[in-house]
């Protein structure tokens, strides 16, 4: 099944990646090639097979409800591209159209 250019554009927006025309073309072709290859999974029967989402054998790993020291505000903001008034600062949030 073919991945259309529109789908590539949709996926790029979901992933918040601005693609150039050339990239969109290249990714369309490459994703089709890779996804085409991945179709081979269909030939393996997995009926009734439990999915593996993490290597099994572990469950119920918890932490006690105890507070430990946080970073200082300065440390928290130390890697920020833009900060103001003890906060991270970002361009204005407008609704997507």
């Amino acid at each position, binding site marked *: 099944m073919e991945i259309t250019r529109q789908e590539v554009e949709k996926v790029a927006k979901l992933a918040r990646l601005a693609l150039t025309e050339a990239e969109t073309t290249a990714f369309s072709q490459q994703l089709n090639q890779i996804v085409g290859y991945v179709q081979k999974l269909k030939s393996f029967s997995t009926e009734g097979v439990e999915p593996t*989402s993490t290597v099994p054998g572990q469950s*119920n790993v918890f*932490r006690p*409800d105890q507070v430990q020291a946080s970073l200082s*505000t300065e440390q928290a903001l130390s890697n920020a591209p833009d900060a103001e008034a003890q906060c*991270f600062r*970002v361009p204005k949030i407008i609704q997507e159209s």
Partner: protein
Amino acid sequence: MAYEVVIGVEVHAQLRTQSKLFCACGTTFGLTANSQTCPVCLGLPGTLPVINEKAVEMAVRAGLAMNGTIGVRNRFARKNYFYPDLPKGYQISQYEAPICEHGWIEIAAGGSRKRVRIRRAHLEEDAGKNLHEAGSGMSLVDLNRAGTPLLEIVTEPDLSSSEEVVAYLKSLRDLLMYLDVCDGNMEEGSFRCEPNLSLRPAGQTTFGTKVELKNINSFKFVKDAVDYEIKRQTKVLNEGGKIYQETRLWNHERGETAVMRSKEEAHDYRYFPDPDLVPMEISSEWIEQLREGLPELASTKQQRFITEYGVPEYDAGILTSSKALAVYFEACVTLYPQPKTVSNWVMGELLRELNNSGTEADASPVTPERLVELLTLVDQGVISLKVARDIFPDVYASGKAPAQIVQEKGLTQVSDEGALATMIDEVLKKNPAQVGQFKEGKQQVLGFLVGQVMKASGGKANPGKVNELLKKALAG
């Protein structure tokens, strides 16, 4: 056309843990921005979440109290979307296997009781806060709240009026506060509610288009927003318009809702199991252990108050409306075993003062001991019931012992026969007409004369004694 209103509610209740859901930062409200963060809740590269066991226990307790089925095998999933207050670019939530399903709670609405079904309740982490910077048009991000544990509680569309929505939310909030898993503070956002609402022509079985309401942080706003939205949708439909599936924000200053975002460009959240966290197996032993540790809930407590203390159902309902009030009542009754008298005081004088000052019963300046002291002063005849009622606000406001207030104000009841006899003589002299009427057989004049004596005593005379002495004097 007549429409039927169909409402479901989504609540985000902040669980009252000490530390966040996946890291050891605290959960205090109102600190300096970004002073309650660490590499984990900032989403720094390489950091990993570890589940707070207490949050899981609180969620299970809430699920059990909502009569729900607790999921044995639980997994956390990632909900992927970009927003500045979401540090990792995904929220750790639950998707396929919520911690609780198929619950219900009972509400009192319009004089009858109704069962509201809970579709699911699941654990997730809270986001931070975006603030708008004045002037620049930029936004500021504070991540102190990011990672705080939330229980998201979603009902079936079982509600049909703003009154029912408020009744449901009050019941749910009381329940969570009873369990001590949520502080219920709506202004600080510890208990956030998002009703969703649709209309359909009466009798139609399919649902109309659903609108979600946000930005509601008090019960009053819930009622106002739902009522507004019902009116708005009714008007749109009556005018032949179309309802769009969207999220609308309540603006309490303008008293109306406005579109926030349209669902037509719905997010694709790409949920998948979080590979950084292993499954949670909530065994039946664990569930039973938590069930045994559940406190007596409001409905059970109400029944017990009726049978054990013989108070009317109405009183029992009010007394158990908050855990703190119920504890207060029982503490009083232990010291002063006259439940109905205590109930009258708690529901009357005490609750009035608590409501006026916005205080919970467990923080009342009039402790159960003080209230009992006041009632005992009445029983001992030191003050009249009226004086007791009159001075209650002073006792509440000053926090002083009732006896001290009585003393300071010189309100000790006059039972001394000599002093009363003098007052009675005065009253009889001043009211010869009434004395004449009494002697002619008009018994009801006695009440008037008692009143005059009480007035002359400044309310301090013991009314029983006055009655007795007056009769004697008139007979003489």
